[in-house]
């Protein structure tokens, strides 16, 4: 399906500014208290504003800035549906409510209430599909959009994703001990793994019409081995990689991996990609931006498109030698040698998602 428009918002700014920052090897992550004003250990967070919930929520003004770039249409009508994807929605406001007991925080705490707020703010119709599947959520939204278009049930689809860090999610990942005092070093072979978390939002308008950049295929797979661990033999990574590889055919691709900075998943991912795509450089950007959770697939798609427009793909910001595998790109590289990219995300439950981005 053609990508008519796509942009994102990160602490660096829009997709072009973010791609430029990644090419310059800049990190948005900074060590900050895990529970915001309630303190706690310092952990790497990449924020667009205050982590503590505000009224109205800080993320709403960010989303208004992002939405300026959405092409006009009767969004939310049956033939121009909106697909909202997130793993957090406005959940930070529920944390604020339990702390402050201010009922105004409840107005956008649940997924439905948060999306209703967006629907009112952006004047969308009722046809707003809401998906939430942890860190592969945006991939699901894009894949579902492609299906609606393919079936002739929509003419254009707006996929809109947002995840903003709050004490709720930072505290949760900190309790799992993978959000700690270290900055993430994706795909690095080191003693202790760590991730960072980041604010991120993005949109894409998909169409059946011609476009210079296209999402040519999607692959999804769910291991259901463990809530927070992958099958030790990497079978889930391999299954998803094999599926998207079949769609890629003989294309010369580069790979934007998930690469959060955890050790086991990072190793399994790097090894699976090296086996399936032995000539493809593997890069990852969460060492700079942190993990934008359910939105990462769409945020990183927007950055990939901006990087393609500039002709240079950012390397693995924050990576360290030695890497798990030789395919990890530590430095930026030219896009001219490639005619496609594979974008990957993974999630709790051993969920795997990949999409094939092709371009003229």
């Amino acid at each position, binding site marked *: 399906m053609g990508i008519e428009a796509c942009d994102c918002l990160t602490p660096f700014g829009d997709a072009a500014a973010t791609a430029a920052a990644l090419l310059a090897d800049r990190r948005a992550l900074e060590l900050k208290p895990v529970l915001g004003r309630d303190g*706690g250990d310092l952990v790497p967070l990449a924020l667009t504003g205050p982590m503590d919930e505000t009224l109205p929520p800080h993320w709403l003004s960010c989303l208004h800035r992002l939405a300026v770039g959405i092409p006009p249409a009767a969004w939310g009508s049956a033939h121009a549906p909106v697909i909202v994807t997130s793993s957090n929605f406005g959940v930070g406001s529920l944390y604020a409510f339990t702390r402050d007991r201010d009922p105004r925080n409840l107005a956008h705490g649940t997924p439905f209430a948060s999306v*209703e707020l967006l629907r009112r703010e952006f004047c969308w119709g*009722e046809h707003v599909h809401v998906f939430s*599947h942890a860190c592969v959520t945006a991939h699901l939204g894009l894949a579902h959009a492609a299906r*609606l278009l393919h079936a002739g*049930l929509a003419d254009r689809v707006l996929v809109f994703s947002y995840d903003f860090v709050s*004490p709720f999610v930072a505290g949760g990942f900190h309790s799992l001990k993978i959000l700690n005092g270290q900055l993430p070093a994706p795909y690095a072979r080191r003693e202790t793994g760590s991730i960072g978390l980041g604010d991120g939002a993005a949109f894409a308008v998909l169409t059946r019409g011609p476009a210079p950049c296209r999402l040519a295929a999607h692959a999804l797979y*769910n291991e259901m081995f463990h809530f927070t661990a992958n099958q030790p033999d990497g079978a889930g990574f391999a299954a998803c990689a094999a599926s998207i590889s079949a769609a890629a055919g003989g294309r010369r691709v580069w790979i934007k991996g998930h690469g959060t900075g955890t050790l086991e998943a990072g190793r399994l991912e790097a090894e699976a990609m090296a086996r399936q795509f032995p000539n493809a450089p593997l890069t990852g950007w969460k060492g700079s931006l942190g993990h934008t959770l359910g939105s990462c697939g769409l945020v990183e798609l927007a950055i990939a498109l901006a990087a393609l427009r500039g002709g240079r793909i950012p390397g693995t910001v924050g990576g360290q030698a030695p890497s798990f595998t030789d395919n990890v790109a530590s430095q930026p590289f030219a896009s001219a040698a490639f005619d496609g990219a594979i974008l990957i995300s993974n999630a709790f*439950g051993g969920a795997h998602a990949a999409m094939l981005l092709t371009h003229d």
Partner: protein
Amino acid sequence: MIERFIHQLRVEQPAPDETAAGARVRLADRFPRTALRRMTHLGMLIGSTLDGVPLVPEDALVFASTFGETRALEDFLMSFPAASPLLFQTSIHPGGVQQVLIGRQQPIARLWPLAGRTRLVEQALLTAVIEPAPRVALVGGEERGTWMLEHAMASPRSFAFAAILTREPAGAAARVGFTPGMETDDACPTLENFTQALAGRRALSWHGAGGAWTFDWL
């Protein structure tokens, strides 16, 4: 017209005051004891509706829940400042269905967890009927909240359903039909109303998503 046939339909409508502890006793024979200890009310209800329903890795599963894992969310929020890792992972959508599939060690090709409200049933059905897998498990449900319910942010009742959708009419219990057209939307059944219709074998029809929906019993 796009049509799919419903097989192996199961509905759980427990007593309104059933708690997770009560469900743990009532459904004890459905789950391994070690898994049961950690399951949420919604997870147990979904597990019960999927009990005996064989799934294979090539299947897809569509999961519809407006509020999702409410009790885990409520308890996780109350666990701060010593946030509970177990409650955190369980509170994340689609924890209710993942508890069941992980308990069964059941990989699945595609899992589509929806979290809307007003047109959730229609969107879940639409997701199911355009899914290319020959068999699609359509699962939905809610669990009754406590303090979030007091603020109208949780379901007042617990319930769940599961059905297998295929293209095979033989032996089917019901048929879902979607005829694309230019009809104006009308009200879509709520998830709870849809579940009640499944339990009571009641036919449904409405307009939405750019077409006409029918749900007929065979």
